[in-house]
C-alpha cells in the first residue's frame, strides 16, 4: 500500500478530531499572520515618503509652527528646486467627532506639482472659466484653485462618508476654533499605496486668513530638491541657517519624518511579538494533544503494522507526516486567508497608517511555523510509536 495513502486514511479515521484540530490551527495561524501584518504595516509606514524630498519642521516639536518668512530663505538654498507648505488642521466632523480623518491646509500652487508623482486627480468640478494653471499642475484642479473654500478629497474618504463632488462639508476646528465650511471640488487617487486615499486638502491661504488672523505660521515645509544626492548636506545647511532664530528647524528626509511617527508607538511591536509567540505555543499544545490521542488510540494497530513488517523508521515517519499534514493544511488556509481578508478590508487606522497588508514573507513564515509546530507536536508520539514493542502493543487493551 502506498505510504502517503496510508497517512491519508489515518487522517480520515477520526474525521471530527482531524477537522477540529485543523480548524484550531487555521484560526491560530490566521491570528499569527494578522499580527505579523500589523508589523508589516508598521514597517511599511517607515518606508512611506520619498528619500529625495526633505521636510523641515520646528526643532522643538511638530506642534510648534514656523514663520512664513522662512519660505524664501529655504527656497534660496542651493539644491532646493521647489518649496511647499503644509499645516495639520485637526478638524472634526461635528456630526460625528469619532469619524476621524486627516486634513491638511496646503499651498496648492506648489503642493500639487510636487506630489504629482504620488497622486492623480480622478474627478473634478468643471471650472467656471478658463484660467492659466501653474506648470506641472493638473488642469482638472482649475475649479479648486479658483475657489477659496474648496477642498480636494481622497477617493476612499469620499466613499466612506458617501460624499459627493460639489458637496460642502462643515468641520469644527479644534486647533483653529470656529466652523469651517469646505466644498469638495476635486477627488484624488493615490498612485502609490502608501500615500493614502483618505486625506482632505484645502487652501492654506484660507486657514491663514481665517484661523491665524493672517499672521501665517507654517506647520512644515516640504522641499523638492534639484540635487537629491546632496540631501543630507542641504538639510544641514538649512538647519544651520535657522540655528539661532526664533524657531530653530529640524530638516530630514520625508521618509525619516514619517518614521518618526512610527517610533511613537513605543513598545507596540514588542507586545505584538510576545502575543504572536503565545499564539504559536497555544497551537502547539492543541496539535500535540491531538497527536497523543491519535497514537494512544491506535496502539494495537501499530503492533499489527510492525508485525506485517513495517520498520520502526517507517512508523516514525508516518506519524510525523500525519501531524505535519494537519498543521500544514490548517496553517496554509489560515495564513493565506489572513492575507486575503485583511488586505481586502482596507483597514488603515483612519488614514494614520498605510493600508494594512500582510506580506507573502509573513504568510511564508506562518506556514513555516505551522510545519514546525506539526513536526514538534508529532515528535514524541512518533518516537513512542516507533519504539513500541509488538508484544506490548498487541497485548494492550483500551
Amino acid at each position, binding site marked *: 500500500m502506498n505510504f502517503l495513502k496510508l497517512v491519508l486514511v489515518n487522517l480520515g479515521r477520526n474525521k471530527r478530531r482531524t477537522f477540529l484540530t485543523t480548524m484550531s490551527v487555521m484560526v491560530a495561524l490566521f491570528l499569527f499572520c494578522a499580527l505579523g501584518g500589523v508589523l508589516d504595516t508598521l514597517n511599511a509606514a517607515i518606508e512611506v515618503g520619498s528619500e529625495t524630498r526633505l521636510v523641515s519642521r520646528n526643532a522643538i516639536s511638530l506642534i*510648534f509652527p514656523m514663520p512664513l518668512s522662512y519660505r524664501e530663505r529655504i527656497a534660496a538654498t542651493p539644491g532646493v528646486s521647489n518649496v511647499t507648505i503644509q499645516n495639520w488642521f485637526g478638524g472634526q466632523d461635528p456630526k460625528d467627532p469619532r469619524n476621524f480623518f486627516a486634513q491638511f491646509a496646503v499651498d496648492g500652487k506648489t503642493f500639487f506639482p510636487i506630489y504629482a508623482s504620488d497622486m492623480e486627480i480622478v474627478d473634478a468640478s468643471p471650472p467656471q472659466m478658463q484660467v492659466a494653471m501653474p506648470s506641472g499642475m493638473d488642469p482638472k484642479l482649475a475649479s479648486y484653485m479658483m475657489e477659496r473654500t474648496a477642498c480636494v478629497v481622497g477617493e476612499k474618504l469620499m466613499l466612506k462618508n458617501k460624499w459627493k463632488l460639489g458637496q460642502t462639508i462643515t468641520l469644527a476646528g479644534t486647533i483653529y476654533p470656529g466652523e469651517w465650511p469646505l466644498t469638495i471640488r476635486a477627488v484624488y487617487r493615490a498612485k502609490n499605496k502608501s500615500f493614502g486615499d483618505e486625506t482632505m486638502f484645502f487652501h492654506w491661504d484660507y486657514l491663514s486668513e481665517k484661523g491665524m488672523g493672517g499672521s501665517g505660521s507654517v506647520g512644515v515645509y516640504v522641499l523638492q530638491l534639484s540635487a537629491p544626492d546632496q540631501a543630507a548636506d542641504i538639510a544641514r545647511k538649512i538647519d544651520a541657517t535657522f540655528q539661532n532664530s526664533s524657531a530653530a528647524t529640524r530638516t530630514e528626509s520625508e521618509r525619516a519624518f514619517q*518614521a*518618526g511617527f512610527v*517610533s*511613537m*508607538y513605543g513598545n507596540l511591536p514588542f507586545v505584538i511579538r510576545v502575543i504572536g509567540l503565545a499564539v504559536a505555543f*497555544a497551537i502547539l*499544545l492543541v496539535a500535540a494533544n491531538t497527536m497523543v490521542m491519535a497514537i494512544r488510540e491506535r496502539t494495537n494497530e501499530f503492533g499489527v503494522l510492525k508485525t506485517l513488517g513495517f520498520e520502526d523508521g517507517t512508523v516514525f515517519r508516518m506519524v510525523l507526516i500525519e501531524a505535519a499534514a494537519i498543521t500544514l493544511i490548517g496553517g496554509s488556509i489560515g495564513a493565506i486567508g489572513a492575507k486575503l481578508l485583511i488586505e481586502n478590508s482596507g483597514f488603515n487606522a483612519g488614514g494614520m497608517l498605510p493600508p494594512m497588508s500582510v506580506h507573502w514573507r509573513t504568510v511564508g513564515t506562518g506556514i513555516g511555523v505551522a510545519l514546525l509546530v506539526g513536526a514538534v507536536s508529532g515528535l514524541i508520539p512518533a518516537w513512542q510509536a516507533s519504539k513500541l514493542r509488538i508484544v506490548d502493543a498487541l497485548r494492550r487493551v483500551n
Partner: protein
Amino acid sequence: MAIPLSYNLRNVFQRPVSTLTTALGVGLTVAIFIGALALASGFQAALIKSGSSDNAMALRKGAGSEISSGISRDQANILRALPGVATGSDGRPLVSADLVVVTNKPRLGQPGSSNITVRGIDPGSLGLRPQIKIVSGRMFAPGTDEVIVGERIAKRFENCGIGERIRFQQRDFTVVGHFTGDGASFESEIWGDNAVLMPALQRDNTFQSVTFRLKDPASFAALEKQLEADPRLGIQLRRESEFYSSQSELLGNIIRFMGVFITVIMAVGAVFGAMNTMYAAVGARTREIATLLVLGFTPLSVMLSFMIESVILALFGGLIGCLLALPINGIVTSTTNFSSFSELAFAFRVTPQALIAGLVFAALMGLVGGFLPSLRAARQPLAKSLRES
C-alpha cells in the same frame, strides 16, 4: 439525581497529559486576555489618577486637549482672583496656570525620538496636586532655569538625569530632581516654573490651562455656568478628573478593542482544542456513560455532568492563565497618547476584576467547548454502547 462532582474531578486528573495541554491552551488565551485588560486599565489609571474631582480646570472653548487650548494671561488672572478658589496652608490661592508644550527628545537606549510634555506651573502650586512627591534631588527653585523630571521618563529619554542639562529651544535647563505622582500621567512630564519656561519656549502670554482647587466641590455646576457665560473668558470649565479620563478614552478603547479581537480569535482555537479533549473523554468512557444511564441517571444529568467536567478543565486553564498574567503587573511600558501627542509611560495593572473576567472567560470557553461532546454523551444508544468491547 445529579452525578457527584468528585466523579468529574477524578476524571479530569485521570488523564494528566491531555488535561494539562488543553488547560494550557485555555490558559494562554486567558493570559493574553488579562494582559490586554491590564494594559488598558493601566493606561487609564495613569490618566484618571492625574485628575482630582476637587479641582476644576479651564480650557479654551472647543479645545479637546491641553495642546489645542490657549488662555491668555489676562484671562488667567481673572480666574486666579475668583472667590470660589480655595487657599492653601500658606494663605495663597491654590491655582496654577499651566503652560503645556510638547517637545521632541531622543530616547535613551533605543533609536528614535518621541514627544514629551513640558509643563510650566505656578511655583508654590504643588498643594493643588498633593500626589506629586520628589523622590530624588530637590524641587526646582522658582525663577531659575531648573526643572524636575517625572521618574517614569527619566530613564527613557536622554539628558534627564539629575545634574544634566536639557535644551528647550535656545536655552539649557538643569534637571534638579525626579518626582513621582502616584502613577499619574504627570510622571511622564517635565515640570518647571511657567514664568521662566514661557519666554524660553516663546509662548507669548498664552497658557494652555488653568487649574484650581474648589473651595466647595459642590459649587462646580454653578461656577461652570457663571464662567462659561462670561464673555471675557471664552472658556469651558471641567472637573480635572473628568478631563483626564476623557483623555484616556480614545487609546483605552483601541487597546480594549485590539485585546478583545485577539482573544476572541484565540478563544475559538482554544475551544476547538477543548472540544477535542472532551470528545476523546466521552469516547473513552462510552461503556461507563451507558452504565450510568442504565443505573437511572437521566440523560440531562449526564449531559450536565460532562459540561461541568469541561468547565472544571477550562477553569483549571483559567487559573494557569491568571498565574501567567500576574507577573506582568507593574511592568512599565510606554506609548504615545494621541490626545496629548506625547509619550505616556504607565504600568500594567492586573486588577482583581481582570482576573475574575479571565476566569469567567475561561468558564465560557469550557461551556462552549463542552456542549457538543456532552450532548453526544447524553444521547448514546444504550444497547450498542454496552455491547461494545
